[in-house]
């Protein structure tokens, strides 16, 4: 049983990380949104699986919320934003695709190095996935700094949140429920505010290219 559990954990974490890397080589916002939606669904499934193996019904609730908010609601809102700005030409990223993939490979190596103390003390069957969660954390940060379009930066931020949720479910089988609820509320409110700003940026700058936001210097 622990063997199956640990294999499911590593497989699920790899799936979540892979969805993050897909964003680096696909082009176009609709593809990014799909990658994020799938990532959230895989994460929700993994959370439910951990709940099953640990016999913790609370995690089913968390998985359900993840699926509903990050798998369905936020991608739907993102698609609405993307459709509204369909004719906006995607500016090229600051870093090209090949370099991005190499960098993300290096970041995952770095994550394995950073996660060594975690693996040293962990005895949970899920510990094999923790470096992958750290890897996704670094890759999401890289997405945010290397992409120019504001909506892509938002998707990078949402993936960063997924990475932390993954880390929490693998390392601790989920933070206490009251914290989980607070985090969901913040994530949702934060996203809604960011969405307002996407419209504001588009209305005031007529572009979603965050590189154009350079009036304020020094």
């Amino acid at each position: 049983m622990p063997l199956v559990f640990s294999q499911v954990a590593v497989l699920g974490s790899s799936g979540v990380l892979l969805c993050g890397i897909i964003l680096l080589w696909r082009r176009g916002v609709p593809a990014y949104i799909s990658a994020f939606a799938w990532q959230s669904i895989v994460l929700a499934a993994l959370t439910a699986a951990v709940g099953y193996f640990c016999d913790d019904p609370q995690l089913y609730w968390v998985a359900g919320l993840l699926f509903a908010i990050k798998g369905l609601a936020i991608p739907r809102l993102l698609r609405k934003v993307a459709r509204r700005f369909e004719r906006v030409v995607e500016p090229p990223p600051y870093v090209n695709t090949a370099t991005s993939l190499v960098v993300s490979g290096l970041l995952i190596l770095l994550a394995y190095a950073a996660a060594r103390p975690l693996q040293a003390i962990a005895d949970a069957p899920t510990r094999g996935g923790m470096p992958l969660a750290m890897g996704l954390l670094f890759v999401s940060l890289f997405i945010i700094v290397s992409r120019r379009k504001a909506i892509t930066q938002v998707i990078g931020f949402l993936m960063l949140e997924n990475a932390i949720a993954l880390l929490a479910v693998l390392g601790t089988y989920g933070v206490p429920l009251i914290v989980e609820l607070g985090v969901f509320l913040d994530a949702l409110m934060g996203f809604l505010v960011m969405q307002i700003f996407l419209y504001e940026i588009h209305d005031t700058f007529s572009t979603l290219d965050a590189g154009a936001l350079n009036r304020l210097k020094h």
Partner: protein
Amino acid sequence: MSLPLPIVGLLLPWATSALLALVVRPYRAPVGWVSVGLGLVSLGSAGVLWAAALGADTAFAGRNDLFRVDALSALVAMCVAIVAELAMCLGPGLSAATPDDARAGGRFRLHGSLFVLAMLVAVTINNVALMWVAIEATTITSALLIPLHRSKASVEASWKYILIGSVGIALAFAGTVLAYFDFVTLLGRRADALNWSLLMHVAPSLHPDVLRLAFVFLVVGYGTKAGLAPMHTWLPDAHSEAPAALSAMMSGVLLAVAQYAVLRWKAVVDLAAGPAFSTQVLLVLGLTSVAVGALSLVPQRNYKRLLAYSSVEHSGLICLGLAFGPAGVFASLLHMLNHALAKSTSFLMAGRILHRYKSAEVDGVSGLLRTMPATGALFAAGVLALMGLPPFGLFVSEFLLFRAGFVSGHVWTTAAALLLAGIGFVALASHLPRMLYGNAPASVAAGEPDRWMLAPIAACAVAMVALGLFLPGVVGSLIGRIVESLGS
């Protein structure tokens, strides 16, 4: 009664004020007056908490230990309550001389009150993860207020703020999760595992390597909110583009709330891993911030941005102080209080100046003492205090801070910080006379509207001077108690 009355008195007024601004539409001036009155209730409650914290380790704790107020909470809560009250007095929606449209007044009272509420919850809640939730909520509520008067610059500033702030704070949550992981793995699952009171208690038995990794995430995360370089890039934009009352709160106390989180975690990590590691991290970040803040002051020509970069510098000094041992922590906390008073005074006065002169450039402002004598004098007092001149409180706290640095053996770091603070001093000193003296542009009318508004600011200036002349016993013993309770 599930919550002690003073904690209710601290938090409930702001919830009420927000609710009122939400319900009463369109906005009317009485809503603003009620928010000022409610702010006074909150300020009084902060005073009660302060007095209680002088006598006991845990002044008040709610049922289930959800809320817990000790000396450190009381100090930061007092800073927040003072600055929030000043901001509510001078913020949009009250002055007859600056008739902001009703929409701006209503939005400020709503989001501003929620912003204050989030900060106060952050410093009084016992659970570290819920504190994180509250600090994240400060980002959301304040980002909505920055473009109160929409322009390209303010939209850009708030976008940078919400993106960098949210990413930074997300990293702090990763750090919190890592610390919780450490706890759960070594000591088992407990519902109260994330409470300060318990964390401080069990810290010595946690795994040092994991906590060190967690601390890096936590410092980078909360350091982003505290305006520490190199994560400070959002700060000059957000603080200079935000309406003055919001800048005062963001610069005066939001930075202090973020430093509060850093200090709490530092105490936990030090108990587990020894102070050497956190000291190194804080020294590097602190000195970088002082350098970036002070050197950016030199070429700066926009007075709101001058104040913003001065916040980076002072935030760096506070961070350095935390690394200078118990005496340094004492100086840092005193500095936090002094900075909250001086920076909010300066920003609020800068808002009045901007409104009159219609220019945020130093070159666009002259003859300030003739056109607006009281505003000009108070602005000068705020800036002189920020420069660290006697008789203002910041002089005392900077002096204590540098002395602690030399005494604790960080001679080169302290000397470098002292030199950089000197550069910042000269940069600010070179701008101030140009603004105060000379002839005002012909288009600028003389006169001082809404004099009553300056009364609370004048009281604040008196407090700044009082803290510089002597250290009141209530302040000294409260901070002494904090240093003792952190065991640093």
